[in-house]
């Protein structure tokens, strides 16, 4: 199967890769590009562990073919922090102990950031609704929701 | 004198008795004492000079790790239970 050359932007860096048409974006991120922060939990769009944003829209990268990344902008968990430090969401997750095994955490962080980009002052219900596409088996979601509420405040305060 | 508690399914070996006072300051001595009262009992508990791994021995409510060498006090209870862990 001959490979296709794709040019895209990942975490604000121009990136190019070769991939087979049948490879998902998730597979290419992890196997070809080394962005193993995005996780595979189910590979059929039900758990959200593979969440990334595509042109600012939250998606499951297991449901997108890598070739569709041509000309698009993708953000993964690896793009959240910067050299100055962690993103407020990452910091809030740590302080609220909003992770136990941590496998769902990258997905939740990307999803939470997408929420705050879209709605800077979400209510608890709005957070729960937005994050319902991300499954967590360890935490029961309580501390995750609290972390997002606090991160929202922090982000608003520094805006 | 320590008391050995016999699991329900083993009581046919001990003539139906559940609680049997026996002399012994180690689990080994208790088991030997039970064997002399009820020949054949030891074989159900011990293999290759060790407690069978599917059986846990509890002395005074605590599962012991030193098997036959575990100490038994004058007022102790010795129980034989299925060995279990968790998840």
């Amino acid at each position, binding site marked *: 199967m001959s490979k296709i050359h794709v040019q895209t932007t990942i975490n604000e860096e121009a990136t190019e890769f070769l991939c087979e048409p*049948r490879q998902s974006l998730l597979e290419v991120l992890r196997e070809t590009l080394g962005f*193993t*922060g995005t*996780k595979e*939990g*189910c*590979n*059929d769009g*039900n*758990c959200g562990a593979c969440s990334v944003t595509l042109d600012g829209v939250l998606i499951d990268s297991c449901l997108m073919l890598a070739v569709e990344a041509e000309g698009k902008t993708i953000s993964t*968990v690896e793009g959240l*922090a910067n050299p100055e430090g*962690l993103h407020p969401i*990452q910091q809030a997750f*740590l302080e609220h*102990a909003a*992770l*136990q*095994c*941590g*496998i769902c955490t990258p997905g939740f962080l990307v999803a939470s950031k997408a929420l705050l980009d879209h709605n800077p002052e979400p209510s608890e219900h709005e957070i729960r*609704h937005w*994050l*319902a*596409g*991300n*499954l967590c*088996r*360890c*935490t*029961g*979601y*309580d*501390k*995750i*929701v609290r972390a997002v509420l606090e991160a929202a405040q922090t982000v608003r305060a520094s805006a | 004198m320590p008391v050995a508690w016999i699991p*329900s*399914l*083993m009581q046919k070996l001990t003539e139906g008795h*559940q609680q049997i006072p026996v002399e012994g300051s180690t689990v080994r001595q208790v088991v030997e004492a039970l064997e002399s009262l009820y020949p054949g009992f030891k074989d159900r*508990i011990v293999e290759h000079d060790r407690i*069978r*791994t*599917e*059986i846990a021995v509890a002395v005074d*409510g*605590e*599962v012991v*790790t*030193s098997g036959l060498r*575990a100490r038994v006090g004058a007022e102790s*209870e010795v*129980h034989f*239970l*299925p*060995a*279990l*862990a*968790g*998840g």
Partner: protein
Amino acid sequence: MSAGNGYKVIGTRPVRHDGVDKVTGRAVYGGDTRLSGLLYGQVLRSPHAHARIKAIDISKAQALPGVKAVLTGADLPKTGDTIVDLGEGPARLKYMSDNVLATDKTLYSGHPVAAVCASNVHIAEEALDLIEVEYEVLEAVLDLREAMKEGAPQLHPDMTTQEFGEDTGRTSNLATHFQHKLGDPDTAFASADVVIEREFNTATVHQGYIEPHNATAMWNADGQITIWTSTQGSFAARAQTGAVLDIPVSKIKVVPQEIGGGFGGKIPIYLEPIAAMLSKTSGQPVKLIMTRPAVFESTGPTPGSHIKIKMGANKDGKIVAAEAYIAFESGAYPGGLVGAAAMCVFSCYDIANGLIDCYDVVLNKPRSFAYRAPGSTQACFATEHVVELLAAELGIDPLEFRLRNSATTGTRRIDGVVYPKMGCKEVLEAIRDSEHYKSAAPSGPNQGRGISVGYWFNVGLQSACTASVNTDGTVSLSEGSTDIGGSRTSIAMQFAETLCLDVDDVRAQVVDTDSIGHTDVTGGSRVTYATGWAAYKSALDVQAQMCERAAQLWEVEVDQVAFEEGVFSSGDKSYTFKELSGHLDETGGPVIGRATVNPDSGVGGSFAANIADVEVDPDTGKVQVLRFTVIQDAGKAIHPSYVEGQMQGGSAQGIGWALNEEYYYNKDGQLDNSSYLDYRIPTSLDLPMIETIIVEVPNPGHPFGVRGVGEANIAPPPAAMAGAIADAIGVRLQALPMKPSNILAATQASESDAALAAGG
């Protein structure tokens, strides 16, 4: 050894040591393992619930370009009648090996029959389609009660029922029979004022961890095997792999990667021997990751059950007798979990007369494995139902009834064990004193409140710890307990507390099987307790050695050196730990503290309770959780945030178990709902905030009073939910899950019709 107050580190909430890696995506989980020359494997699984393998033709798969090796059960070492003992009793090696790759029979839909490795996972999957397996389909049995009947299809024609060390010689699908008896239940029942008897069914459920099983193996040219895997126990994985491959454990190194959830399901091995054998044949490292459907279809779910409970009480509110019959699914092979259910079923109550009769039954489902306090949830659901009915019949408030009959220090359980100091009563009192309980119960139409209490005994087992003092006063702490919930930090905190160090100065690491002493699994709620204890002892070892070094420096006798509040002193001389660390090279070289534990006593069990408020939609039967509180005895909460996390996590799993989760098999014995879409676990939208109340009845058997908290919290939720639903709609369900269709049936029909709706 007692838990005092005034701790510097214990009870605080530091950011966990592995936290930054986990929120930046840098942490390496098993699926992230990268090695040069890595090949990718996949597993072919039987579609039949019960079949004989007549032939397997792998030639076409081998010929596919990119395929490097193909494996079947015939390639694993022959097991014969070998019995292995990996610490929990003798087991037929054939059962363990056949569950990795079937040889003569497949016993459940999803049973592995072959494996392939190739240069990428897609080629490996294509190769699976080219493997031709000739099956002779056999009659299957997937229903627990059907499997117990005479004439049921027998999975293992030579398997005889084991009765506590005795081989009964009887062949059937009954693998094990336990019985516990205390006092004289027959007489006690006969004289009781009230006797209530009910029957229950619970469906098969899965642990549901988000990370699929994975293993990467390299079988080196020198015969050394390295395995990178997400596991709850590196040493357990090593032992099981060595047994299946018939290789000494000294030739196997297991390198634990970070693990994305386990809950008991990642204690058994599935992929490790396959990865190793594929690596041996191909000469390259091989990685296998289970697909999500395979996780559901092929890995140990926890037992579905059939339970009967009978309890008798007197007018004064005292329970005088209790009887339980418990039958558990063991799945395709013996080695099930009903023994634990027997220990937990009446464990919250002081009952002088009782009988518990329980069975593990094989049937054509994947082999059952542990799921968080395995057996306790099913038993608690049943017992608490009858307790509520007794209280109602006697006209006694249900919480008051529980308090009156609460097990306490010195209570003898029906399996004979006498409780040491424990906190059942305190947990029940915490229900009574909680803001939630004191608030008015929801009183709208179809709203209700329920309470429940459950237990898990916890285990000790073996752990090891080594601590290397760095010259800047920090310590590198190595331990072998894979970290599924933040435990490496709780272990570091116990070490830091002992030496008055900052927790950030203790660098905790989970290391491989060549780098630490034998450490038993991360499970059984044992890590904070046992590995924490090993950390504490290794800190004392460091302290003793550092005192000797100070004595050398100050040229005094070592008994003239004191250590207090982090400072070594003798007369007017003193060094902080940090200062003294800078002098190790001139006093004999590095200081390494070490300790091992295998506690003979002092494992403290934990009780957990719930208060649940619900609303039931009368048109759909859907249950909404309005408010939920979990109370648990932690003995001493080392890191309260992670204790709360365990309590909330177990509650969420218990709520899913209560309301929706079940394995759904079609008429061909295949699992129809092997995806997160249809095996529906709770989402953030299904749950409210989960209030936590940590009770601390210190465990006298641990230096800081710790009781493991990982498990007991999953026991009470289905019972509390059943009570709340009963309060809401007037019908008390007797089957799990209490899914919308079952609730609608219960509200629309009579109680006796709905009561025994089985869970699939």
